[in-house]
């Protein structure tokens, strides 16, 4: 009786050891590639929001993490990436969370140049309804491109809203909740940049978590 229990225990232990070795070996083989993929993906997903701004080096290395509470939209950490050319700042990218989406938070990326003009907006993460709210994705519609080249004077801050709300930006066919959340987050980001432009570029980069 006891020997049967012992035999079961030993079998389990041996198989657990074999399985762990298998996973550990795969991890060692893939970990470098995965890290490289993630870096490349980050850089690749950041650059479109910079429009045709020229910059030097890697933007992902200039990462500045603002833990909440901060004045940017969203109540989770906001990330600011800074782009430089010849040592001088040329633009900033804000990864912030838009609240008030139809199905949860929407993570967006807003690029702003030194003249406080939007260089581009991209959607990093969302769970909006396919075919309706997901029109905010540039692969689904041109909706996000209407912000390119606009700034807080064009239109004035009060008109940074959807047309249905008396503003100057288009909503999506069949969806206004999702675009409203995004427009609001962009407006708040621009207001933040207006107030803190100089200090953003003075702060040292946040160290990578270990």
């Amino acid at each position, binding site marked *: 009786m006891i020997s049967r229990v012992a035999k079961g225990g030993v*079998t*389990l232990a041996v198989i*657990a050891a074999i*399985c762990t070795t298998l*996973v550990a070996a*795969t991890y060692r083989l893939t970990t470098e*590639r995965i890290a490289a993929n993630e870096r490349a993906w980050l850089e690749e997903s950041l650059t479109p929001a910079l429009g045709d701004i020229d910059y030097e080096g890697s933007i992902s290395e200039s990462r500045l993490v603002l833990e909440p509470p901060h004045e940017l939209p969203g109540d989770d950490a906001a990330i600011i990436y800074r782009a430089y050319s010849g040592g001088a700042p040329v633009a900033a990218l804000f990864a912030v969370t838009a609240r008030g989406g139809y199905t949860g938070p929407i993570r967006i990326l807003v690029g702003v140049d030194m003249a406080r003009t939007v260089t581009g907006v991209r959607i990093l993460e969302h769970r909006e309804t396919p*075919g*309706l709210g997901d029109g905010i994705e540039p*692969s689904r519609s041109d909706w996000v491109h209407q912000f390119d080249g606009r700034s807080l004077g064009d239109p004035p801050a009060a008109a940074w809203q959807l047309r249905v709300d008396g503003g100057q930006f288009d909503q999506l066919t069949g969806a206004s909740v999702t675009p409203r959340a995004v427009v609001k987050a962009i407006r708040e980001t621009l207001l933040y940049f207006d107030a803190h432009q100089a200090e953003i570029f003075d702060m040292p980069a946040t160290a990578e978590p270990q």
Partner: protein
Amino acid sequence: MTSGQFVERMQTGLWRENPGLVQLLGLCPLLAVTSTFVNGLGLGIATLVVLTCSNVLVSATRRWILAEIRVPIYVLIIASLVTCTELIFKAWFPALDRSLGIFIPLIVTNCAIVARAEVFASRNDVVSSLFDGLGMGAGFALLLMVIGFFRELVGRGSIFSEFDKLFGGDPLAGLVLVDGGWLLAVLPPGAFFSLALAVALKNYFDNRREAAHKT
């Protein structure tokens, strides 16, 4: 002998006891990821690989495994295989990994896999378990691809879009037949309708063949 056995296991997996169509197993990933053909193909291949490896391992170790601890051992084996698969996807098919998201780690909960371990691999030799894994995996993958193909065609009006997720390179729009489509097909209800149609079609063919045999 083995080639006859191979054909027999493939027929069983692909048609007679298709895990999705007949056993109705693994429906959660089946319904969730099949909004495009490429997603179906990706998850289908991942499931096929995990199922085949787990069948082989379970069958190879069946002599030493006591009945009381077989379930924790299946869980260990399947979970390790799925973790390895996930790491491999992240390393070599990052775009597809992002698109399938949580459904790669969730292969571990696909009851089709533990069902084959329990029903087949723990009672048969390694070679037939290998064939069974290939057959069942192929049956599941094929169903994912067929449903993905038609949902994408009806819901988006395109064929084979986003193939770059699997093979890299520039984003591909696939063959766009019409701009936009019948939205319902890519939403969750479309998944249920498609599966129901697929099951109904299979039963229709089976009944017809049975009727033909009688006369």
